[in-house]
């Protein structure tokens, strides 16, 4: 029988963001993926602490961990895994793989997040302008965007990196990673913004004719006000989703660029470089290949799943 009285929950008004947050909170995938991402971020931030615990640096050679007679492969099982070297050591150099892994996470996240930020700011601005003003400006920006999208980005990045690097070095930036990493960020952002711009443009076109925009316009609001105060606040959901899905793309691009030789300069740690170095040893020291591979896999998966969950949570039509 039905109970009488008190258990009927109170009906309360909930904002869309509140609804989204609660949906996200109930999503197990979101929790798992967020945990993965957070673990990596914490690990990357804590890398100097690990360095202090293990009492070595990611670049230091450890010749005593290597078997001189057997191709300078690590001594011991699983590529030299021990209490001191948790993930083993690198063949031929004896550098600590765990430290290189956590510092590699740092490089990956730093470059991916920076490139995402630049790409997002540029993409949102161009999307707003293109969508809001329409006409010739839209024509011009949209064609530019399509041209950029049509470029074979990796090949172009390989070709343009030394050129841009030369420009930076000539203007006084020190050689090495000080000029290489900004170049990577610029190159990756250059090929990343069109995706955001295109989504934002579409949204702006549908928003700019809406009543609240009309109302503001009728009240004599300036264009700047219309774009930044009326339209932009309604775009944060698609932007957030695109950002969450862009980060993993940039992480893989960064690793690919380093793998192909247009990325981070050694001895700085990087997953792409680790993968590259592990190739000759995949049959004799498979763990060395797996570690950066699994790192990339988990981090990319984490960000992707999290991005999906955010999108589901923000989409009122999705039912899960």
């Amino acid at each position: 029988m039905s109970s009488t009285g008190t258990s009927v929950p109170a009906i309360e008004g909930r904002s869309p963001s509140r609804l989204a947050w609660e949906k996200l909170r109930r999503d197990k995938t979101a929790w798992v993926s967020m945990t993965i991402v957070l673990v990596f971020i914490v690990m990357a931030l804590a890398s100097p602490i690990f360095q202090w615990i293990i009492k070595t640096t990611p670049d230091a050679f450890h010749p005593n961990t290597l078997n001189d007679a057997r191709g300078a492969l690590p001594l011991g099982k699983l590529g030299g895994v021990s209490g001191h070297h948790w993930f083993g050591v690198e063949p031929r150099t004896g550098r600590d793989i765990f430290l290189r892994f956590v510092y590699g996470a740092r490089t990956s996240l730093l470059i991916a997040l920076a490139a995402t930020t630049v790409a997002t700011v540029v993409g949102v601005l161009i999307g707003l302008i293109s969508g809001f003003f329409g006409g010739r400006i839209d024509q011009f920006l949209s064609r530019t965007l399509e041209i950029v999208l049509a470029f074979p980005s990796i090949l172009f990045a390989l070709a343009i990196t030394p050129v841009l690097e030369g420009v930076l070095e000539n203007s006084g930036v020190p050689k090495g990673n000080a000029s290489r990493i900004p170049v990577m960020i610029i190159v990756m952002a250059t090929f990343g913004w069109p995706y955001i711009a295109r989504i934002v443009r579409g949204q702006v076109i549908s928003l700019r004719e809406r009543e609240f925009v009309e109302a503001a316009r009728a009240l004599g609001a300036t264009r700047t006000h219309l774009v930044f105060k009326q339209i932009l606040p309604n775009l944060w959901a698609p932007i957030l989703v695109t950002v969450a899905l862009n980060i993993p793309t940039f992480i893989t691009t960064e690793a690919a660029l380093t793998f192909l030789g247009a990325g981070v300069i050694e001895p700085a740690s990087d997953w792409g470089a680790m993968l590259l170095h592990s190739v000759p040893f995949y049959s004799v020291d498979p763990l060395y290949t797996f570690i950066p591979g699994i790192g990339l896999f988990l981090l990319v998966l984490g960000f992707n799943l999290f991005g999906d969950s955010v999108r589901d949570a923000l989409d009122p039509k999705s039912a899960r």
Partner: protein
Amino acid sequence: MNIHRKAGLIGSVAALAATAFYAVPTATAATANPSWVGPAPVIKGAVTGGTLNILNQGDFEHIDPARNYVGGTLDFYRFFIRTLTQYRTINGKTELVPDIAADLGTTKDQGKTWVFKLRPNLKYEDGTAITCADLKYGIERSYNDDILDGGTTYAHDLLANPTDYKGPYTTPTKNLSSVTCSPKGDSVKFDLQQATPYFPFVTTFGAFSPVPVAHDTKQNYDLHPWSSGPYKIASYDRGKQMTLVRNKFWDPNTDPLRHNFPDTIKVKFGFEQNALEQQFVSDSGAAQTGMTLDTEVVTNLATVSGNDKYKSRFFAFNSPYARYLAINMDTVKDLNVRKAIQCAVDLKTVLLAAGGSAAGRYANSLIPSNISLAYRNFPVCGRDVKMNPESQIAAAKALLAATPNAKKDLILAYRDKGVEPARAEAAQQALQAVGFTVTMQKLPRAGYYTAIGKRGVSGEPDVIQTSWGFDWPAASGIVYALLDGRTMLATDSHSNYSRSNVPAIQTLFEKADATIATAPQEKLLGDIEQKLIQDYAAVVPLYIETSNFMAGSKLGGVQPDGGYGTISPLYAWLKK
């Protein structure tokens, strides 16, 4: 001129004592030697017949004798190319022997003119006679290196050329006046620009081989060089395969170094490194009756080396390469700082970075120990590097401490190829451990040797990671090229990367020039090298590289060749 460009070399694993592989011949004494007459010494157990497979990753760069400058190919193309002189390796001993010549040359003026007697009754693949005029034409062709690129430049560099001859394609009416055939055509005389005691070594290169004018197809000669050896090219599909069949006009009685055991030799190109390695390890398919000239054992080295199962078909031997660091004497002027660099570099981490003891053997000298007339085992930084390769940290620090205003900021240049970045990092760490600050200068593969030779440029490196593969197995093929400052320009050090230019040493070089007999000259060159390493700290020798190759179980007679430092198919035969 850094030659013997090898394909697919990354470095490696495994240990095997390389035996002494050559004895430097005395080139001046030209007394007829019974072993110079054919046929070649008997190879024990060898039988005739079958097909020898050669499986390579890439096609030969060139097989036109005027254009080939790659170690493995110089070795291989002896199947169909005969040169004036040539190397013969029997039972691990290599010696220079006359090939189409009948002797190793004679000189009456300290090596400025050389006369070689020629062997009679030699024939090409079509049965026509090989003449002295053909040899002269072969040499002349090498002057047209605008059309026939890729080869050695020794003929131009050494032969006198008073009429400024530019090659038969450019000036067909003239000829090279410094090469003269005797009226009977039984000997040939060379006039050189200056006394060159090592000339009989130089005549092993392809430019000194006979080419019949009637069959010279210029660039296309690269597809079918007219054979003078025991095999001829039956078909050659560039990039895919080449088939060699017996040349019935070749007479073993005229050849002191070649055999022709297999009926056919099939060369296939286009294999992938790891797949090919795996094929040799598992001894399957064509690899069972095959070998490779360009694919070293790299990933499987840990499995193969020191394993009795593979012992009979695994070959680890000295390559012609010495790896070393040149210290720039222009920019690092202070001897104590150079000595500190020499003491600081840790040969152990460097060799480990290259693959450990299977990749090479610690070196105190740029001259391999096998070049016995010149090599000597002197200490570097007060220790025997073979026993004690580790960094001499205390000694290096003391040297730096004793030097007021010592230059401590160094630029280390290295090439972005294979294990070279890892080796450079190893050197960087060792140098930093004693108090240097090292800026790394990573340079692209292409143009590396040009870049590091430039003098007086901004950012000129202080320490240069480089290597040298000798062109002939003697100190004269190493020390002149790497340490002689006399030909250095203000803007270009040539291959004297340490920019060594010491008056006292130049006097010794002049003395060596004037010493024509091989043994005393080699000894003098050994002295020069020792002085420059010990007293002037011009270079830090790191290691002499080891090559690691495999062959199929059904092959006999496969051996490392001492003349080229490569794995040689010349005496390969098929087990029944």
